[in-house]
């Protein structure tokens, strides 16, 4: 095929390019270009029609000028004209220009689309390819809209040339990625899968890429690709190195296609078909075997291509995670690479092994390489390889090797690159906590971490060690001793001071017995660091000091001296100043008992997921760059907490120093609103004290809290007061039924008349009768007071109607008088029709005003499904026959329950009759048992119903069995009836 190369017949272009190259200065270049632009413009505008060749030449020049970085504002039309040329080179330059310089000029786009359409329909494969490439290169939404529907057709057409199919597949892929909604799925998808069988390897390669992308969205549509991909892969893998001719790369048959096929298979679980699976496993084994064979070429390209396939094979094996044999072989193969002289291979081996470590089958095999990996961590010269080694160590860590791995990582940390220090710190912290057998090791590790890489120890890490020390009695003494020793180092990291301050403030008493760490020594050690620390740390230390006053009364005078010092009491920082003033007053005003309560040891922290782990997960996420410094250097969080402690809002760990005093845990003795205990307590104490600083209001933190407070208690109230939205069918609000509603309802399951409800104001009586699926109910509302009820309005609503939109019950009510005089009674008639079976009874809502106060009450109307029972008499034989007919498990509902009432046969009989069924004598062989039958009548259908009740007088138990043709009815009846005995 022809191609544009080095001016190829376009002498003018070659001359122009060499002119440009010979330009000595930028100015000369611009001058030459301007001259050329003027020339081209005049040619394009000239009267003489240009021939195809000249047009091509000038468009080429324009393109070159554009690529040199100059703007082009004409020539588009000429380029579009070139599209309709019949000469390949002219058409090609036209498409090239458009691909590079396309703009969304609507006029042009229409012309371009037209030209493309013609070329697509031309049946000339070269032209079709050019058009497809142009669509793919531009890839805009407009192009997609114009052609997305045509391309699948070209792709699967039987008469398309290979090169066209290939281009169509790639073009479609591009359009699908740009705007998936434009590519219609249809019957072509099934035929695309069969392109995997195509003779032409280029078509197969393009098709695999397309299918891999499409199947991610609709895996089921492309499921058939598994077996085709496996057989294609098997043919490639087992072919001799020369079989595939053009597609053999340095004696490796179709390496990129193999990689793509292996990747496609990773979109699916292992093949279900045993034959396909067997063939695939065979392929994978062949690849692993080939890795051991001597190379067919010494060229690096050969081994690179081979290894590309090998690594993809291993990722497929890891993806399946089901073949222990293959997993272990993969691990051994990677083990060989760990010591390979090629850095690239070592890197990839470490990376793959990291995923292998998480498989239960290969975890042990990975662990055998620990020494090599540790060695890599120490000796690798490339930081990315070292990082992979650190990752792998983290992944292979378990209880058996945790101590070794953690100590190696700590050692590495001393020399580690700054870029990965924070991650290593997090990893060490997590491993130390996760696999700690004894907590003194854990404390040592974390303190070492702070010592070695204090700057990289985030808040989460040192919060966590404090939480663990606080929660575990057995390690507190050790922790106090260790931090005390660590603090003696002449230069120690501020994080160490924070941890030290907190731990000594809590548990300093545990080491106070030793004269070397007596209270004054502890205090002066901490205080020697004080002046070098940031405000946050100093604030924390002040809290430690006040805790010291409680722990060690002998230090009180010294500490009060420190607090009283002008540098504290008049500190420019409001937080420090406030702490100094309040602590000083607290220490002088409060009695020892109060101090002991207020400054009690911190209660254990509730167990929660390690926040460090959460942080590592975040770091691993896509936004790793920004996650590096969230919170820690976030100035806004400082503002919120008034500089107490930069607590990142995203972290759930409570800031230990904010809570250091434990004041929130202590009950506030005299604070009227028991909301912000700490603040009020301090303010109360403070008001008795000397000269109050006028500037001292509630701290910003408290102000922040109190602003948040008001809505909180209101919201549950509001919820209660508001009707549940589901039970709100119309303009009239219906509240939830009163708590006793269910109990009241139960009383009426087996009887039709009685008092439904009664309180000091109102009595509601019920009288009802039911026949078949119809019922009439009289409700009597009695005013028990001597005052008139106003706006009296009872309404009936069926809660089921909102969910199903089908009313199971039709209830007609008549309005009643809006006023009910004192002592009077009004009557309301309800006509009820049962349309279909239902489970929940209607609600009766009564609203009225009594003495000006609105009253409302919601009850369940005593209409249950059994009211529509029609008793049916039948002989024993019929009963058993029907009983057997209803033998499906879901048709039966059974309940065994304890008797709540005395077991009287006559009462039981009455209840069963009241329930509505007929009682059948001489059916059950045991005369103690009751057997009943009936039909539930609804307008839509009738539900036959059989029941059997077996009392066990000895155990005071009943067994109730119901069989109906409808499952929910069986269950519901069974539940209703069971509550009656």
């Amino acid at each position, binding site marked *: 095929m022809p191609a544009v190369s080095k001016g190829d017949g376009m002498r003018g272009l070659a001359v122009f390019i060499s002119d440009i190259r010979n330009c000595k200065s930028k100015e000369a270049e611009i001058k030459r270009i301007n001259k050329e632009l003027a020339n081209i413009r005049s040619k394009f505008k000239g009267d003489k029609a240009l021939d195809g060749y000249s047009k091509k030449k000038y468009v080429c020049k324009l393109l070159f000028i554009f690529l040199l970085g100059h703007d082009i504002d004409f020539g588009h039309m000429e380029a579009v004209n070139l599209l309709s040329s019949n000469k390949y080179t002219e058409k090609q330059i036209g498409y090239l220009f458009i691909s590079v310089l396309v703009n969304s000029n609507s006029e042009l786009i229409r012309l371009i689309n037209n030209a493309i359409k013609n070329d697509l329909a031309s049946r000339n494969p070269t032209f079709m390819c050019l058009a497809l490439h142009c669509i793919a290169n531009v890839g805009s939404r407009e192009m997609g809209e114009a052609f997305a529907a045509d391309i699948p057709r070209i792709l699967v057409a039987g008469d398309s040339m290979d090169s066209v199919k290939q281009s169509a597949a790639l*073009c479609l892929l591009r359009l699908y990625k740009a705007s998936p909604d434009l590519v219609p799925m249809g019957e072509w998808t099934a035929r695309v899968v069969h392109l995997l069988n195509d003779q032409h390897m280029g078509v197969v390669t393009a098709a695999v890429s397309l299918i891999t992308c499409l199947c991610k969205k609709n895996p089921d549509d492309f499921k058939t690709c598994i077996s085709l991909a496996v057989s294609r892969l098997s043919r490639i893998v087992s072919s001799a190195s020369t079989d595939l001719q053009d597609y053999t790369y340095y004696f490796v048959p179709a390496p990129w296609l193999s990689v793509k096929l292996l990747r496609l298979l990773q979109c699916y679980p292992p093949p279900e078909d045993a034959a396909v699976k067997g063939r695939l496993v065979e392929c994978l084994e062949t690849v692993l075997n080939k890795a051991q064979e001597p190379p067919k070429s010494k060229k690096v390209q050969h081994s690179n291509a081979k290894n590309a396939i090998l690594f993809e094979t291993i990722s497929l094996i890891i993806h399946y995670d089901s073949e222990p044999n293959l997993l272990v072989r993969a691990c051994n193969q990677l083990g060989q690479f760990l010591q390979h002289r090629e850095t690239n291979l070592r890197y990839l081996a470490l990376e793959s092994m990291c995923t292998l470590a998480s498989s239960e089958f290969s975890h042990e095999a990975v662990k055998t390489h620990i020494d090599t990996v540790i060695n890599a961590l120490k000796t690798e010269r490339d930081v990315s390889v070292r990082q992979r080694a650190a990752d792998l160590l983290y992944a292979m860590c378990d209880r058996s090797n945790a101590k070794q791995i953690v100590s190696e990582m700590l050692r590495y940390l001393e020399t580690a690159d700054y870029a990965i220090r924070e991650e290593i710190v997090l990893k060490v912290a997590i491993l130390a906590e996760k696999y700690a057998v004894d907590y003194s090791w854990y404390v040592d590790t974390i303190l070492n971490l702070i010592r070695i890489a204090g700057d990289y120890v985030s808040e989460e890490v040192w919060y966590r060690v404090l939480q663990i020390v606080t929660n575990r009695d057995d390690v507190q003494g050790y922790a106090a001793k260790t931090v005390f020793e660590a603090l003696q180092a002449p230069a120690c990291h501020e994080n160490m001071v924070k941890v030290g301050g907190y731990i000594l403030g809590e548990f300093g008493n545990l080491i106070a017995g030793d004269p070397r760490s007596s209270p004054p020594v502890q205090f002066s050690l901490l205080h020697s660091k004080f002046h070098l620390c940031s405000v946050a740390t100093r604030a924390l230390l002040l809290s430690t000091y006040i805790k010291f006053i409680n722990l060690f009364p002998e230090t009180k005078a010294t500490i009060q001296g420190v607090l009283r010092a002008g540098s504290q009491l008049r500190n420019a920082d409001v937080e420090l100043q406030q702490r100094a003033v309040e602590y000083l007053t607290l220490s002088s005003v409060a009695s020892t008992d109060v101090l002991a309560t207020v400054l009690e040891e911190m209660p254990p922290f509730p167990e929660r997921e390690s926040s460090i782990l959460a942080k590592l997960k975040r770091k691993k996420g896509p936004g790793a760059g920004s996650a590096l410094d969230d919170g820690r250097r976030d100035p806004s969080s400082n503002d919120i907490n008034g500089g107490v402690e930069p607590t990142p809002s995203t972290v759930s760990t409570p800031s230990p120093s904010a809570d250091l005093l434990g004041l929130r845990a202590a009950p506030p003795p005299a604070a009227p609103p028991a909301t912000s205990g700490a603040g009020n307590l301090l303010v109360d104490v403070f008001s008795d004290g000397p000269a109050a600083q006028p500037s001292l209001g509630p701290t910003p933190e408290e102000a922040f809290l109190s602003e948040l407070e008001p809505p909180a208690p209101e919201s549950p109230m509001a919820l209660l007061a508001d009707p549940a939205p589901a039970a709100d069918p119309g303009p009239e609000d219906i509240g939830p039924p009163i708590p006793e509603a269910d109990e009241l309802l139960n009383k009426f399951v087996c009887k039709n008349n009685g008092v439904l409800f009664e309180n000091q104001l109102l009595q509601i009586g019920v009288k009802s009768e039911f026949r078949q699926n119809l019922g009439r109910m009289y409700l009597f509302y009695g005013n028990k007071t001597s005052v008139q009820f106003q706006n009296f309005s009872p309404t009936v609503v069926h809660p089921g109607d909102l969910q199903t939109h089908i009313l199971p019950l039709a209830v007609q009510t008549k309005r009643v008088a809006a006023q009910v005089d004192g002592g009077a009674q009004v009557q309301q008639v309800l006509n009820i029709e049962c349309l279909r079976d239902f489970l929940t009874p209607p609600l009766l809502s009564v609203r009225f005003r009594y003495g000006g106060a609105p009253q409302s009450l919601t009850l369940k109307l005593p209409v249950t499904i059994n009211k529509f029972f029609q008793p049916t008499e039948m002989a024993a034989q019929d009963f058993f026959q029907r009983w057997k007919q209803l033998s499906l498990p879901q048709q039966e509902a059974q309940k065994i329950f304890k008797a709540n009432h005395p077991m009287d046969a006559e009462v039981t009989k009455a209840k069963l009759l009241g329930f509505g069924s007929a009682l059948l004598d001489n059916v059950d062989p045991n005369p103690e048992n009751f057997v009943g039958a009936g039909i539930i009548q609804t307008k839509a259908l009738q539900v036959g119903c059989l029941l059997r009740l077996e009392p066990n007088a000895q155990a005071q138990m009943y067994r109730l069995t119901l069989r109906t043709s409808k499952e929910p009815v069986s269950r519901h009846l069974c539940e209703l009836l069971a509550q009656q005995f």
Partner: protein
Amino acid sequence: MIKFFLMVNKQGQTRLAKYYEHVEINKRTVLETEVIKSCLSRSNEQCSFIEFKDFKLICRRYAALLIVVGVNDTENEMAIYEFIHNFVEVLDEYFSRVSELDVSFFKAVSQVFLSTWQSTGVVLIRFYF
């Protein structure tokens, strides 16, 4: 998936850039500068794969020319590494001995090569034109 393809000379000038994902022009310059900086500073002993933000760079050096491919997590590094070589071989064959100037001179042609060849990350082994 391939995100972008860069050809850079020893001085760090971009000679060819092809993006397969939309990146704004002004962001491209910043990105290219960063990418080139981290690739050019590497020695031969270092591995050719660099983790860069949330994707990976795969780079290969040819005398005065450096080729960098940016890929996302799911790409096979070794296959891309070798693909770079294959691409250079094809250019070499086409231009009879490829040099930096050829690439810049025929930038447009290379563009077409690339897009035809592995539009959206597809690798075809042999050319058909």
